[in-house]
């Protein structure tokens, strides 16, 4: 069964901390994505990666960075967490070519206090 897993369902961090959100997929997908979901704002793309060590900025990359050292793993990094980064973070993956479906992970609810 297709699976995208995220390291934590809930996370509480303090302002200024460095935060790592991990995402792992077992489908051998080339493309991986990080979104944040906020009420009234929908799903907004932060970064995506189309291959190992490759990354591209999405619509709201400010304050975030990413790392993809292995095909199955895509990490989102908050270098210095701020309260406005409190949100639900969703990871997704997709294959190449005419495979359009993105598979989403269960999400990480991050609270920055």
């Amino acid at each position, binding site marked *: 069964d297709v699976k*995208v897993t995220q390291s934590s369902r809930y996370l509480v961090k303090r302002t200024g901390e460095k935060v790592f959100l991990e995402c792992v997929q077992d489908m051998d997908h080339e*493309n991986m994505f990080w*979104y944040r979901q906020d009420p*009234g*704002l*929908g*799903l*907004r*793309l932060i970064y*995506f990666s*189309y291959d190992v060590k490759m990354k*591209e900025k*999405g*619509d709201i990359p400010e304050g975030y960075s990413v790392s993809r050292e292995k095909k199955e793993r895509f990490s989102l990094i908050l270098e210095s967490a701020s309260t406005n980064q409190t949100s639900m973070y*969703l990871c997704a993956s*997709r294959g*190449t070519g005419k495979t*359009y*479906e*993105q*598979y*989403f*992970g*269960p*999400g990480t609810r991050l609270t920055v206090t």
Partner: protein
Amino acid sequence: QQPVQSPQAVILREGEDAVINCSSSKALYSVHWYRQKHGEAPVFLMILLKGGEQKGHEKISASFNEKKQQSSLYLTASQLSYSGTYFCGTSSGGYQKVTFGIGTKLQVIP
């Protein structure tokens, strides 16, 4: 720029039909539809491609007007299981970057 969805919310009785609209200010290559149930991850429903190709869900249909940069999702004879938030996503080229709207919350009641 995010596509605009309408309505933002709708309540239906079982068996009723609904239409959710999605429009973009950019020329579109593809429109993607997802449904997210409360507390769950979004799940793919359908994609519509420029040129007419369509892949998706057996009980839900959609249209794509390329000239108007609009898509509509048609839910017919709604069931309780249709409840959730529906997102449209648009892409202006290629497959990687999909920009999602803010969603339409649909509730089906008995």
